């Protein structure tokens, strides 16, 4: 059934909210300043409940089934984290409360930063960036500030072709010119390629590790040495941290700056696109450049400290997405040392899928993967079946499709990240579905072209949407 748009519902004068009693007189206001108020529909509370209940039913989430969207780490979002974030003491807290009345959240932020420092091996941490991309921006601001401070502003940043898509834009926002580095034949970075490009006008390199092919950049220490040798810095995109917690100390690899995506590795809800949180972890040497304010502990008291003259400044009006930080903190406390198991199982699951599907789908890099594996549609192309068809058909089997056509270095990529949350039975069901689709690609390519059949709508005309944009009603 269709659900009408909000403004196709309701009746003027109806109400869906409880307004406090009026206990003061009306105060007049200059007519020149006042308007008519927005043309919102008037609904009852039940109208609102039904509308959003129905809309939600057309959505697929981790709670609906396996969601192996590569590079997005769609793990289980624990329900208890929602309880914690909604405690009135947290949810009702004004950000400018005096420190005496904010000790609970200041302590939480202080300890969360320490845990993230321990997990990454980069002990100086800001929690302020609102998402991974703002974390990247923060990292680039630090690059910029560092080089300015050391007296040598630089103009370029190296970015391998296996890095995350946001990296070039983040670098560009800080005035850096991104320079692409081609990865080697094994899908990983070759030190020589970096050495050839690294010079003293290059601020550093941005490396996603494990990279977007799901492979560990095993030459990273050599690469870091090359970059450091030229006075550059190494930025690590920690979006894929879920693969290596407790296994790799990122600080040991020569990485100077790393952002994390709490909505990936640390189980905070994705919420249909956000809010996220993108803490940035740096070496002690770069700590002075972190955003302010920073939470510091004086004896038993926590306070906010603005006094870092080299700081890049503020990225958020207050302290970032604290509600998200609370959830990540809850997750870390719930798992503690078992975070290493999280990574082990995430990697086990990806390798299991890789191994079981590699007869059915083309595997461009057949080597042990980390938390995700990348196939292509090469075998299916023979039957005129493309990655998109395979993805859409998976919906008819009750699965969310993997990430498709990314990374760009692989043509027709199918990037599968199961995460540690999925059980062996669920993986087996997914593998069965993928194998059935592979068989169907041979037997009935049109069945795939016509998919999906079961969701509320069929394939949507994206060209029409972009050519004649209709962005509001």
């Amino acid at each position, binding site marked *: 059934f269709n659900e009408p748009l909000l403004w196709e519902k309701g009746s003027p004068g109806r109400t869906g909210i409880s307004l406090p009693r009026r206990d003061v007189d009306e105060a007049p206001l200059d007519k020149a300043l006042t308007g008519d108020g*927005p043309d919102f529909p008037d609904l009852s509370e039940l109208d609102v409940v039904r509308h959003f209940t129905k809309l939600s039913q057309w959505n697929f*989430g981790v709670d609906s089934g396996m969601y192996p969207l590569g590079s997005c780490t769609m793990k289980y979002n624990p329900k208890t984290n929602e309880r914690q974030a909604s405690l009135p003491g947290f949810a009702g807290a004004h950000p400018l409360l005096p420190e005496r009345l904010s000790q609970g959240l200041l302590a939480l932020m202080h300890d969360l930063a320490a845990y993230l420092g321990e997990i990454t091996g980069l002990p100086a941490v800001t929690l302020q960036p609102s998402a991974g991309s703002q974390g990247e921006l923060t990292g680039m601001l630090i690059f910029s500030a560092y080089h300015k401070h050391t007296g040598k502003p630089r103009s370029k940043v190296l970015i391998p072709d296996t890095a995350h898509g946001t990296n070039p834009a983040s670098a560009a926002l800080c005035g850096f010119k991104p320079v692409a580095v081609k990865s080697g034949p094994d899908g990983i970075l070759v030190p020589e390629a970096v050495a050839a490009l690294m010079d003293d006008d290059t601020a550093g390199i941005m490396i996603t590790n494990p990279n977007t092919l799901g492979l560990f950049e095993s030459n990273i220490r050599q690469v870091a040495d090359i970059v450091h040798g030229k006075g550059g810095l190494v930025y690590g995109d920690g979006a894929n941290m879920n693969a290596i917690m407790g296994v790799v100390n990122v600080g040991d690899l020569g990485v100077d700056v790393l952002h994390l995506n709490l909505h990936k590795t640390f189980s905070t809800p994705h919420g249909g696109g956000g809010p996220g949180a993108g803490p940035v972890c740096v070496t002690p040497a770069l700590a002075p450049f972190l955003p302010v304010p920073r939470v510091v502990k004086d004896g038993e008291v926590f306070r906010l400290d603005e006094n870092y003259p080299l700081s890049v400044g503020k990225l958020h009006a207050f302290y970032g997405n604290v509600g998200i930080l609370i959830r990540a903190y809850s997750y870390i406390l719930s798992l503690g040392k078992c975070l290493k198991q999280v990574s082990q199982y995430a990697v086990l699951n990806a390798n299991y899928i890789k191994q079981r599907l590699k007869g059915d789908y083309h595997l461009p890099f057949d080597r042990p993967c980390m938390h995700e594996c990348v196939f292509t549609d090469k075998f299916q192309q023979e039957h005129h079946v493309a990655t998109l068809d395979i993805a859409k058909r998976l919906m008819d089997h009750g699965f969310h499709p993997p990430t498709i056509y990314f990374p760009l270095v692989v043509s027709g990529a199918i990037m599968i990240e199961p995460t540690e949350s999925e059980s062996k039975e669920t993986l087996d069901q997914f593998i069965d579905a993928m194998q059935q689709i592979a068989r169907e690609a041979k037997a009935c390519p049109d069945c795939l072209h016509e998919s999906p059949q079961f969701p509320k709508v069929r394939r949507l005309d994206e060209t029409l949407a972009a050519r004649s944009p209709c962005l509001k009603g």
Partner: protein
Amino acid sequence: MRYLPHTPEDIRAMLQVVGAADLDALFASIPDDCRRKEALNLPEPLTEWELNGHMDNLAAGMGASPGTKVFMGAGSYHHHIPEVTRQLLLRGEYFTAYTPYQPEISQGTLQTIYEYQSLVCRLLGMDVANASMYDGASGLAEALLMTIRVSRRKTVAVSRAVHPLYRRVVETYFAPTGFEVVELPVGQDGRTDLSGLKDLGELAGVALQSPNFFGCIEDMAAAGKMIHADPKTLFVAAFSEPLAFGMLKSPGECGADIACGEGQSLGIPQSFGGPGLGMFASRQSYVRSMPGRLIGKTVDRDGKTGFVLTLATREQHIRREKATSNICSNQGLCATASTMYMAALGGTGIRQLARLNRDRAEYLKASLAKAGFSSPFSAPTFNEFVVRFPDKFEETWKALLEKKMVAGLHLEPYYPELSDCWLMCVTETIDRDDMDTLVKEVTR
């Protein structure tokens, strides 16, 4: 551990398929010198019940509303949030979904955000709104960068009456770019003084906030005219309290080219400042220069209406370094919350609620004035206003904390010239009795 489904038997069977001897062997591709030597130095895992106790303790150490009466806004507002919003947001289908890359199974998120965009346009009187930015501050920075892209000029002007913390974020974003931000002064009445505008040269954009940081309602219509005296300059209308548009002229009506601000007021908990909601809208003609995600209406193969992410060619995963912004997510769940809230409030409700906010704030302003504490500024205000208190007020303010009252925000750290001034806020959550109590306490 209840989040980790694997049993020893599962692990054994899977390792065998993979051909790895044990879990460590899975990491064979990581060179030895890249392996972590020491175990993670983290606390023992807490049980669900231990975690509850621990978090309850931390939360008890906060002076949060409604237990504490907070007469402070300054960009974070305590408004009532209907239980309906809270419960609907917990629905896993909304909550655990990612960015709607696969529209066929994401129509819930997509229609909701399309509705969000539409309601934001209606509220702000603008042509087109994006799917949201991180917060009001970074939204303003993005808006100013957008004026530079659109106008191909290099300088922007920002009012000193814009939220000081927003201005600091703008500074951060501008620092490495080489573009310049100049400040517009505040006049005697608490509004931006635009008289010097014409001397500032070719401006890409001019940003004012209304109600501004002092709670004063700027004369935005007049400002729009002055700014557009240079037709290439974009007028950026910022805000931190969108509820005001339930009774004020909208940015669009005042000629704004871009309207942007913080939407936390619209059904989102304060949560110590975040997550909030960066609302962002512009004129139709600038849509392709706009940062952020956009949802559009289209049809499926059978001609049925549906919604998709669109105009992605502006975005970083396609345009890479030429993208309009590096932002690749939005505040999806917060935008969803605000859509639910705006739907529950309705047009009639938002008019009434905005009125009540203003009228209660006026009551406190008048009561304080009667008690001898007047405002340095004469411009009309919405639900915040500045009061000048006598020298020793800091002591009173501290004493009131003990009585669970936060009697406004001291302006000194933000505006040294207003060192005896405090920014007061009254929303619908503060009633007449609360205000009478406050006035009694500050006058005793």
